[in-house]
């Protein structure tokens, strides 16, 4: 049964995954769901299609290996788990068994970013960089819980692998009204239009970006918020357009290391296309292991919370000093 929801409401992305997979299990008899003991929200699928549900226990490597073996034989396997472990413990399996033969395996998981208060072993903060490194991999990071279902549905036709990153996924704000935006893998979403500066973001920080834009609007600054939920392939055309339409002012905000994720993807485009930006600033996790604390506290502590975002946007549209241009960043 499809999830019903209201704009602005809080919804669990995890339960969206569970119900979407259960729904697709019906139409796609070759859909399999696998998990390394992180199956709490997969119960509906598990109980309806027990013969296509595989819980291997604590064993991420074989979980991905089995998924690849299933895919070789014409199946569509979804591996669901916690991203810090899937993206690293099983990395070679993802690369060699899934990406090399370009199989339609989907990796969907939670704990992307400094979320969940599990400490540094439990935060996936480099995962997007790792995944973008893999040839054939499509890489997404999704904040809106309803969109998660939409992307999973779209992905049923994909011939290659897909990575979907979520934050905790227990309570997420529905960001987009139905039909409000075209949701297509590979295309960024202009979540809010604006003309003075573009704020690029993805996943859990989209909501924060919209709040920051709202604050800037009170100062009369028009911020464009782009939900760049697909990091690979990156929407080069949209980036170029934003450079032209928002006066070459870019701020990138992400719950990921400031180097290796979206900001670096955009930097690649900036260099490749020779974009002449007026300002470029990245807000993300610095080169530290972040420790304990609630999500928002950690973002504030590490300089990419709401007020830091507002500050960066102000700097971007302020007098033409290049933010952070004096000191080489510790990268």
């Amino acid at each position, binding site marked *: 049964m499809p999830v019903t929801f209201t704009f602005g409401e809080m919804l669990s992305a995890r339960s969206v995954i569970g119900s979407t997979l259960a729904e697709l299990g019906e139409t796609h008899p070759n859909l399999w769901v696998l998990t390394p003991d992180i199956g709490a929200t997969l119960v509906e699928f598990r109980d309806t299609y027990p013969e296509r549900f595989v*819980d291997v226990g604590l064993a*991420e490597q074989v979980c991905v290996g089995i998924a690849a073996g299933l895919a070789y034989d014409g199946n569509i396997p979804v591996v669901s788990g916690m991203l810090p472990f899937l993206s690293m413990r099983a990395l070679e399996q993802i690369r060699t068994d899934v990406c090399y033969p370009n199989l339609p395996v989907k990796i969907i998981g939670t704990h992307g970013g400094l979320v969940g*208060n599990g*400490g540094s*072993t439990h935060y996936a903060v480099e995962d997007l960089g790792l995944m973008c490194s893999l040839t054939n991999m499509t890489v997404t990071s999704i904040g809106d819980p309803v969109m998660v279902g939409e992307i999973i549905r779209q992905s049923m036709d994909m011939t290659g692998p897909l990575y979907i990153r979520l934050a905790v996924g227990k309570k997420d704000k529905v960001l987009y009204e139905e039909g409000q935006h075209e949701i297509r893998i590979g295309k960024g979403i202009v979540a809010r239009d604006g003309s003075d500066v573009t704020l690029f973001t993805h996943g859990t920080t989209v909501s924060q970006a919209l709040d920051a834009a709202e604050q800037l609007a009170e100062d009369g600054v028009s911020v464009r918020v782009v939900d760049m939920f697909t990091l690979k392939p990156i929407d080069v055309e949209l980036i170029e357009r934003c450079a032209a339409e928002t006066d070459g002012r870019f701020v990138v905000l992400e719950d990921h290391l400031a180097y290796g994720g979206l900001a670096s993807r955009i930097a690649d485009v900036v260099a490749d296309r020779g974009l002449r930006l007026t300002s470029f600033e990245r807000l993300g996790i610095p080169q530290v292991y972040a*420790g*304990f604390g609630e999500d928002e506290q950690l973002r504030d502590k590490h300089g990419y919370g709401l007020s830091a975002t507002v500050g960066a946007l102000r700097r971007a549209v302020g007098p033409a000093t290049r933010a952070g241009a004096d000191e080489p960043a510790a990268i």
Partner: protein
Amino acid sequence: MTRAVLDTGERHSVAELEDLAYELRRKLLLLCGTYEGAVHIGGDLSVADILTALFHHGLRIDPNDIANPARDRFVLSKGHAAVCMYIAMSMRGFFSYDEIVATYGQLDSAYGMHPCKVQLPGVECSTGSLGHGLPLAVGMALSGRARGELHRVVTLLGDGETGEGSVWEAAMAGRSQKLGNLVAFVDRNRQLMTSFAEERVIFEPYADKWRAFGWNVVEIDGHDMGQLVAAIDALPSPDSDLPTVVICETVKGKGVDFMERNLAWHAGSLGADDLERALAALDASRASNASENDTEAQEAR
């Protein structure tokens, strides 16, 4: 080589250790009643006796000399039982229980969901991602060997955790390197996070696995303090050749009836009502243990 002399605290009788384990569980529940987030209560309760036996009896450690090279090393491979270890260590004099309760899980606290050596000296290494502790312990045991220490490196794993391939790589390495100073306790509570063992993953014949990997295998009831102490006292000399695994048959949620063998209590938080119920259940379980012990004692007579 002789084992280094460390101030390893007072010697406790089995009955005293049982009291300490009761106290540990109580303190754990009280913390859960205070902290708003989820705590891995089930897996904490299942290792409370093991951690008590280790920190108050088995490990040669000194809270006032945490860098002593001759100390035994303890690696909490099942890092999600961190809070239970913090409290056990506080009861042994390492940390302050009040500080743990006051700061657990908060910003800049040293006491988080998983042990972080970077923030909390006294724990030997950072764990939390399952399958890492045994390899680390192998490295530490090798190092001690090479330095001529007669210490032990003791680690505690979850049974679900032993599904990780890295555990079997480490099992093979521990045997190949002939590390008699390496000891693994396995919390065989027959539950993973979302399933019971043997339901989705077949672990049996479990002890045979370790035997086939060349380990010295000891099987005990992980809630029987007498058996825990005996197993520890009977450990082969650290300069022997085979690593030892102590497979502890346990119950996830042990001591709080409504949490026992209940998948819902892998992790959770305790509201005021829950806390009261849990404390009452704990006392009831203690009373019934005591009367069991009486019966056993009478029968033994």
